[in-house]
């Protein structure tokens, strides 16, 4: 069946990229200045010669290059992402522990930015097109530009200063109130309160991106011939926008949203660092501070895999929405 073979091909492509990251990691360790074993061990362990020797044997640093690569890749696909000396845990365990928090953060930020941004873009386009309340268009575009130019980590800090330090409305750190031991509904509320600032600050940049994109897409579609056809049929303008313009305009926004996920992953690192959010972004930052390179590379691999899979999903969704693309092509 065409669909199955397409899916397999697409998955193969995704795997190819993931393999590429693995090889990339491998090359980094070899190309970096210094003793590869010491790099793999990280700062904390580099004074432990027994551990260093163990690593040398495990990764075969004295073996020919291709053998090293094979050992490394084999290890990854057996889900051995290395060991974090500092934390005394396998890297995979550390990541698995933190991954859900990041997924939660990114999912919410994604939804927030897409919907709010899309809505703003549609409103802006509409006011521009019908020439009514064009101040709305100018305002939305100016605000978007402002958020687009604002560094994410700085915006996060500003929000902390405003909402936590000055106003005291929202908590600034972590996922839950420390030591409170809340359960059930109260816990959900507590986590939600902790989520607000990270989600909003992570989402603001992308909200601006989607607003601009949605507006441009809407305006472009509004100029197309089939819109004129619809009007010539006597379809009232509200219906023209809903039935004809929006569906067509949202297609490019959806594809773009998928591509943006890569950037959002990077943004998550920054947001989690500022807010102390216990996700893999924060883990990456910790790995940086601790000079724990195995952990760092492990997080990088998992983040990349996550993004690749998200891309695949959005690609599929796009193919389902747009009837012009045959699912099997």
């Amino acid at each position, binding site marked *: 069946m065409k669909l199955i073979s397409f899916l397999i091909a697409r998955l193969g492509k995704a795997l190819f990229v993931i393999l590429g990251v693995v090889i990339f990691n491998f090359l980094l360790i070899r190309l970096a200045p210094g003793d590869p074993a010491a790099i793999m061990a990280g700062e904390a362990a580099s004074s432990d010669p027994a551990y260093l020797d163990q690593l040398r044997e495990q990764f075969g640093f004295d073996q020919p290059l291709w053998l090293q690569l094979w050992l490394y890749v084999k290890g990854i696909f057996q889900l051995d992402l290395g060991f974090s000396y500092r934390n005394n845990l396998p890297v995979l365990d550390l990541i698995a522990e933190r991954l859900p928090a990041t997924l939660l953060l990114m999912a919410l930020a994604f939804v927030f930015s897409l919907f709010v941004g899309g809505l703003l873009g549609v409103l802006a386009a509409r006011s521009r097109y019908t*020439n009514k309340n064009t101040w709305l268009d100018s305002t939305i575009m100016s605000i978007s530009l402002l958020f687009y130019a604002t560094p994410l980590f700085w915006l996060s800090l500003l929000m902390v200063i405003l909402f936590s330090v000055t106003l005291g409305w929202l908590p600034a750190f972590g996922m839950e109130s420390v030591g409170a031991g809340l359960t059930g509904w109260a816990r959900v509320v507590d986590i939600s309160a902790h989520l607000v600032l990270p989600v909003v600050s992570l989402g603001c940049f992308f909200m601006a991106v989607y607003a601009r994109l949605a507006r441009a897409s809407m305006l472009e579609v509004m100029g*197309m*011939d*089939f819109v*004129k*056809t*619809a*009007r*010539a*049929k*006597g*379809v*009232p*303008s509200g*219906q023209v926008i809903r*039935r*004809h313009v929006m*569906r*067509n305009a949202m297609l490019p926004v959806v594809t773009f949203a998928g591509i943006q996920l890569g950037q959002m992953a990077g943004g998550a690192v920054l947001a989690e660092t500022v807010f102390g959010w216990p996700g893999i972004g924060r883990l990456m930052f910790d790995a940086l501070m601790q000079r724990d390179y195995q952990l760092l590379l492990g997080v990088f691999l998992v983040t990349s895999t996550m993004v690749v899979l998200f891309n695949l999903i959005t690609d599929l969704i796009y193919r389902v929405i*747009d*009837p*012009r693309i045959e699912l099997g092509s």
Partner: protein
Amino acid sequence: MSIANLPPNTPLLSVEHLTVALPDGSDRTHAVKDLSFELHAGEILCIVGESGSGKSISANAIMGLLPGYLKPKTGRIVFKGRDLLQQREDELLTLRGKDIGMVFQEPMSALNPLMRVGEQIAEVLAVHGAYPGPARQQRVLELLNFVGLPDPTTLKDAYPFRLSGGQRQRVMIAMALALEPAILIADEPTTALDVTTQAQILALIKRIQASMGMGVMFITHDFGVVADIADRVAVMEKGVLVEQGPAEQVLNRPQHPYTQRLIAAVPHRNSDETAQGNLTDPVVLEVKNLRKTYVTERGLFVRKRVVNAVDGVSFNVQRGQTLGIVGESGSGKSTIGKCLLRLTDIDSGQLIFNGTDIAPLSQAQFRPMRKHLQMIFQDPFASLNPRHTVGRSIIDGPVANGVPYAEAERRARELLRLVELDESSFDR
């Protein structure tokens, strides 16, 4: 809506002294100026003019679909006793699609790509509250059949990209006619179609007009179309109506100098024969069994096409001889040119130039021979790099083949004189 109720000789639609202003900074002050014409029931009125003459403006003004920066300044458009320019938007909404139907030029983009074809036709019925219930689907099928589309029951669920240009145009016509309007406005509906399809669509429009007795306002720049279907003709130049009258009169005895120029510009069939070449001159080019195919996969309703662009073509060209290759668009003549110059690869056949088959040569092997085979392309604007001076463009060829710069420049200036261009063009 019933045409029969009108007293005889009353026009269906009357445009009176319409003037539409253009925004400041445009190349003229008005899109149309003091435009007046009438459309009667049962006739096809062709509005002819070059692009930019304002012929579409009146159509858009009638429907109330002028873009925001074009505003009617004076005049009236009278339809069923009302001035359309004075109507509110919601009143115009009831007219559009129901009393006046419109079809435009680009069938490729004039249908919503995400909506099924049957749904789009049903939409015009739904918007005006006509044919409620199951009768609606029935009407859609009827219409699809009426405009000559095959297999209506399956086609109505198709998306536009599955149909060919001609089929999409038929769908547009079906949508425009769905509620049996008194007037059909067709704005260059066949311009984007190939000759054969164009003929089919024109025949369809004639048939429909005859059976429904509507008034048709057909906008075009092609006098061939006018000759085919017009009852009356109105000629426009730069926003002004310069001549109006029965088709036979305007085409054969044009009064206005502009009309006369336009008609004279239509290429005529007869031309004098050129002298035959000497049959013993050496053959410079031999083409044997040239074959080039393109595979295009069309929709479900057009047979999957493997286009034989060039299918077993053979010919010879002698030294000093000029061979003219004629055909309709799509006949493959440009493809032959491209194949000869190795701008595209061929599927089979031999291209023998001065005794050597150039078909199997690689690009690098062929390049030194290129100076012997040259081409003049169709579009002078597109053939010249907009960022280079004329002189540069002429010199590029010789320099690429090893001629020293100074000599190439001298030769280029010579050539400019030869083609009767001023030498200073070199630097433009």
